[in-house]
């Protein structure tokens, strides 16, 4: 029911507001998607924490306080303290920065590489398409996390290598999705008209085809950031990512699990943050897809 209503509106919107620019058009539709809208607000809040977090944390996230270890949530330690007496709230806020920078940069690298591969594959076809797609099939054959563990095992632990690992397994999905919309777009008349005026292949790919694939990329990007946060946390939890003493959410879970029976709050708050952040990115991605790319719904 709800979908029908939105689709009807979409047509009306486009017909009635011909002079409206694209962003306003998008915003008008997106604004009605309440869950996605609130997810966006939540993510914006997280981004504020990333930028300003170090100025608003009540305590230094790495400062131990041995006189106040494993205390339950209470004032002034709202989320309690961990086994070294460090403030969990401050650590969760500091962890936001790690989680978002790692996941966003990893997916960004994966998206750029995947988009280029997808455009090349879809546009040129023939053997180059086959080669790229078989390469993607190989990567798809590994479960994401196993592949990431493998890459980190080769490169050694550390956040930088986690970024590389996650970027690596995001490549094939971007390549595939960009390829499929490239195949669709390259048959359109405006691409032919660009060819007829003598435009170079590079120009056709980047000026005419690529802009048409952006909505799909945005949707996929958002959803993949959610997955990437989860993967980064998993790797850190396994001791393959961030240093265990750092305020990474996954590392906090890993360190806190020994105290889970007595001091549940040490794992509860980072776990909650992972859950909410991943959920927010997924819901935002869903909402964006409904608005930007109505064809691929369901």
């Amino acid at each position, binding site marked *: 029911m709800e979908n029908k209503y939105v689709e009807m509106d979409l047509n009306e919107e*486009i017909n009635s507001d*011909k*002079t409206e620019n*694209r962003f306003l058009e998008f915003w008008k539709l997106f604004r009605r998607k309440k869950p996605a809208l609130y997810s966006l607000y939540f993510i914006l809040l997280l981004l504020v924490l990333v930028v300003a977090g170090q100025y608003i944390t009540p305590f230094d996230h790495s400062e131990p306080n041995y006189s106040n270890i494993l205390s339950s949530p209470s004032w002034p330690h709202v989320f309690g303290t961990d086994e070294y007496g460090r403030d969990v709230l401050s650590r969760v806020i500091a962890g936001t920065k790690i989680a978002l920078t790692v996941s966003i940069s990893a997916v960004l690298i994966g998206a750029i590489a995947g988009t280029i591969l997808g455009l090349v594959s879809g546009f040129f076809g023939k053997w180059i398409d086959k080669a790229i797609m078989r390469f993607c099939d190989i990567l798809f054959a590994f479960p994401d996390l196993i592949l990431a563990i493998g890459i980190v095992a080769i490169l050694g632990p550390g956040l930088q290598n986690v970024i590389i690992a996650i970027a690596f397994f995001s490549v094939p999905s971007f390549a595939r999705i960009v390829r499929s919309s490239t195949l669709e777009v390259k048959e*359109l*008349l*405006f691409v*032919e*008209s*660009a*060819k*007829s*005026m*003598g*435009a*170079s292949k590079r*120009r056709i790919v980047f*000026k*005419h085809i690529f*802009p*048409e694939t952006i909505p799909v990329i945005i949707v996929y990007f958002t959803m993949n950031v959610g997955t990437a946060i989860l993967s980064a946390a998993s790797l850190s939890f396994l001791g393959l990512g961030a240093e265990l003493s750092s305020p990474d959410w996954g590392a906090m879970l890993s360190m806190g699990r020994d105290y889970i029976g007595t001091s549940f709050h040490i794992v509860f708050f980072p776990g909650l943050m992972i859950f909410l952040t991943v959920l927010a990115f997924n819901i935002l991605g869903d909402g964006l897809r409904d608005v930007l790319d109505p064809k691929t719904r369901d």
Partner: protein
Amino acid sequence: MTQSTLIEVKGLTKKFPLGKKWFKPNGYVRAVDGLDFTIKKGETFGLVGESGCGKSTTGRLINGLIEANEGEILFDGQNLVGLPDSQWNSYRKRMQMIFQDPFASLSPRMKIKDIVIEPLDVHYPKMPKSEKLEKAEKLLEICGISKFHWNKYPHEFSGGQRQRISIARSLILNPELIIADEAVSALDVSIQSQVLNLLVDLQVEFDLTYLFISHDLSVVEHISNRIGVMYLGDLVEVASKEQLFKNPKHPYTQSLLSSIPQPGKQDREKIILKGEIPSASNPPKGCKFHTRCPFAMDICRKEIPENIHVDDDHVVACHLYS
């Protein structure tokens, strides 16, 4: 008036392979099959025929969007068939295409001004942007799109406006030949005449030559000097507009012309063709039209008719006149 030839097409053939079986195609669709015609400088050559007869393929072959299998396209004396892409481009500058569907032929995420100057970006990357925009402004003005709309996107315009934008774009390189592939077919009749009149005005102003491809005889009659009638990938009759409409020779042309409704002449005899257009992958032997021709003779089933000059500038490929 003696006019020099701009385009001469000789024996142009395009075969599209049909489904692959191992490495050999199952057969070919002969979309364009040994086409011969010339277009003189400054004239409008209309190409008519029913859908699937290869009109559009011909336009795309001349522009080099697809590569011909056989034959020659002489553009100002230079054969374009088999020319590498880099050299094609210097000829593409001199010929531009206008497409049928103005809703699809403009990049939806580019502003109008960027769309119109794109050919300049492609061919003259070093020209300063202000100069490009100046040219664009002039052309858009001529085509009836005011500067006020420059920063809009194609979806904000109507079909007729968009077609005028694509006409402005096709003119910005100052080309000699415009290939208009069903350029007005997607428009309302009232808008059609506006755009056609614009094309006629532009022809005078910019000294253009048109290859005007259409299935609509009245449109072609309005704009063309000479007309070629295509049937199954080949021209059956080429004549000046007056000759063709007053004195059609080929039975196919006659039936096409009799299908144009004319007010006040309801009892006019109509030649209604029987049967479907035969498949281009397996065309009939002899004259391709014999399966539907009311005057088919024995020879039509065996021999391909030669081009016969029945008059000055009136060529017909039919055994009736040999």
